[in-house]
């Protein structure tokens, strides 16, 4: 019988297989950041171990880094200590690091792909759940804990328990104005936050094949929000075109050999998935979350659901608690929810195409009175590209704040946080209680919906903007 994409990549990395034991998998690329690595380096130090493959390891600073005044010392002494610890560890163990201020600095999942380090058929790990992002290239990419970070540093391998396979097939074409973010939010609402548990999801079908690499990264990024161990998309011409010429992409004969291998990384026609989900792209619309987990979402045209409408008692209680936390009432129209803050950025939607699409909506308009909008590029390279294209001016002229690269308000480890009760339309990935700041309320949205929301002051899509004049029309 044939094999799925995930099974092929897995099989190609088995260092040791024994009955009744997890496979020992080789890791091609290990990405590090300051938050989940210090205790791992400490472990190495205590046991007198070294980093086995510094040439397969890369570190960036992203979670704690400020997005303002980056030339000044970091105000929060604890954040500063954590960044200094990463610098010391990378120096001591010989790990390549892109610190704050470096032109390659940025969110770890933006940096790996843009350097061309994330390649089809590779295994990628990072002490960060959104490592699933790299699956967009047909890589098998897992988020891991700190004990596993130490394990990979010491051995370049990981014992991994077997997985199940799930196909999410998206047929047809996404309607105008519907983005990868809307699609993945709809998928998570369909399968639930635990529906992917134990699975590696392969996204396939015409609508997926039509997506750009950056849009594919948005999809795979949020696989973890469905509980999946990883998300993958088979590499194709779009993938190869994205990679060719990047800093760490193979060249010459190596490129040809690599592409020949990459072309084999497709699920065989006679392969079977353990579970299949089919979605009709034509039925999708801009999608937003109303609750406190990423599965609690609905089309923007819908209303806040009545908890009593949930058949499962657990879902009902979860919805009740979510509405209480979010300060929403059943039946309230999602379009009428007013926001205080709009955040564009993160490893989900902080790449250049995301900034372009938000800027396109904002161009020549002003954001609503009283709304604060933060635009945080995913990396310094993305920022430089945006400046080159004049996008930073589009944002600032619309009244938004143009910030330095980092994770920023996605999780508020730096000063970019919501205040208690403050409501935010966010292009990030998690609407958990307090995620963006204690008491903050998060609605997950696409960059286009974020921009339209900033203009109107309530949840909106670009299609709702007919009555928001541009200066030329005033």
């Amino acid at each position, binding site marked *: 019988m044939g094999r799925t994409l995930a099974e092929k990549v897995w099989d190609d990395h088995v*260092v040791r297989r024994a009955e*009744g*034991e*997890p496979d*020992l998998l*080789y890791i*091609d*690329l290990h990405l590090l950041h300051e*938050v*989940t690595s210090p205790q791992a380096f400490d472990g190495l130090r205590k046991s007198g171990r070294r980093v086995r493959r*510094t*040439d*397969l390891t*890369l570190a960036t600073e992203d*979670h704690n880094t400020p997005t303002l005044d980056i030339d000044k010392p970091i105000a*929060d002494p*604890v*954040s500063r200590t*954590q960044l200094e610890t990463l610098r010391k560890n990378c120096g001591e163990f010989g790990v*390549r690091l892109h610190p704050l201020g470096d032109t390659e600095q940025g969110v770890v999942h933006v940096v790996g792909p843009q350097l061309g380090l994330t*390649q089809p058929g590779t295994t990628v790990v990072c*002490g*960060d*759940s959104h490592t699933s992002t790299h699956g967009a290239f047909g890589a098998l990419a897992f*988020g*891991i*804990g*700190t*004990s*596993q970070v130490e*394990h990979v540093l*010491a*051995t*370049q*391998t990981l*014992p991994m*328990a077997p997985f199940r396979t799930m196909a999410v097939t998206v047929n047809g074409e996404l309607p105008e104005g519907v983005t990868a973010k809307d699609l993945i939010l709809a998928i998570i609402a369909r399968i639930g*936050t*635990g529906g992917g*548990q134990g699975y590696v999801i392969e996204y396939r079908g015409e609508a997926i094949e039509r997506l750009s690499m950056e849009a594919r990264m948005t999809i795979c990024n949020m696989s973890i*929000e469905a*509980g999946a161990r990883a998300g993958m998309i088979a590499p194709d011409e779009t993938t190869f075109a994205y990679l060719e010429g990047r800093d760490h*992409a*193979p060249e010459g004969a190596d*490129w040809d*050999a*690599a592409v020949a*291998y990459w072309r084999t990384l497709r699920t065989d026609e006679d392969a079977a998935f353990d579970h299949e989900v089919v979605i009709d792209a034509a039925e999708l619309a801009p999608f937003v979350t109303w609750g406190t*987990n990423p599965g609690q979402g609905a089309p923007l045209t819908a209303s806040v659901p009545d908890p009593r409408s949930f058949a499962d008692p*657990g*879902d009902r*209680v*979860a919805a009740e*608690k979510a509405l209480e936390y979010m300060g929403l009432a059943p039946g309230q129209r999602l379009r009428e929810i007013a926001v205080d803050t709009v955040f564009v950025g993160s490893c989900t939607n902080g790449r250049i195409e995301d900034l372009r699409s938000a800027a396109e909506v904002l161009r020549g308009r002003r954001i609503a009175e009283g709304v604060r909008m933060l635009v945080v590029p995913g990396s310094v390279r993305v920022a430089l590209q945006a400046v080159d294209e004049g996008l930073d001016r589009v944002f600032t002229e619309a009244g938004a704040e143009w910030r330095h690269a980092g994770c920023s308000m996605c*999780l508020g480890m730096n000063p970019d946080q919501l205040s208690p009760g403050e409501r935010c339309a966010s292009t990030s990935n*998690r609407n*958990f*209680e*307090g995620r963006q700041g*204690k008491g903050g309320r998060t609605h997950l949205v696409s960059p286009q919906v974020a921009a339209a929301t900033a203009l109107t002051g309530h949840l909106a899509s670009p299609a709702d903007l007919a009555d928001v004049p541009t200066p030329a029309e005033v």
Partner: protein
Amino acid sequence: MEAFTTHTGRAVPLRRSNVDTDQIIPAHWLKKVTRDGFEDGLFESWRRDPEFVLNQEAHRGATVLVAGPDFGTGSSREHAVWALQNYGFKAVISPRFADIFRGNSLKNGLLTVVLPAATVEALWELAEREPGSEVTVDLVARRVTAPGIEADFDLDENARWRLLEGLDDISLTLREEAAIADFESRRPVYKPRTQAV
């Protein structure tokens, strides 16, 4: 890692599903560079509510957390496991755990036990009715017992063995040095490298 064989203690009923790791330990705690001192951050936001189950006198000193499905979703932060252990928990029971959290817990000797929703409900009712009653989580027999409740649970044999023996994964893997070196000698040259060494 500390070995886990069997544990007996009182249970805390946490009647919530989708307990994500941001609730277990909020992000601002992750700036610490140690594995200890996270106990005050555990469920920090919920613990501000005096009625929250962990704040109830009857549940003080309990060591077995019983939660709803999809416990530990979200971030991969191992700090969530450390926070539960630092606070004093030895085992967590839920109908379903997020994968990364479960992996992290087993690597630290925090036993995560999957039991059916009906058994979890029975444990909740018991802990609410008689907070002083003890629950035994026996990894040798793979069984949870409490007054009027007896439930077997699954855990793959390899993970169980590592826990029972308190084995360090890295030492075990380093015994495979020859296999790792052999694999490395066969890796294609086009595979990416972050730096020349």
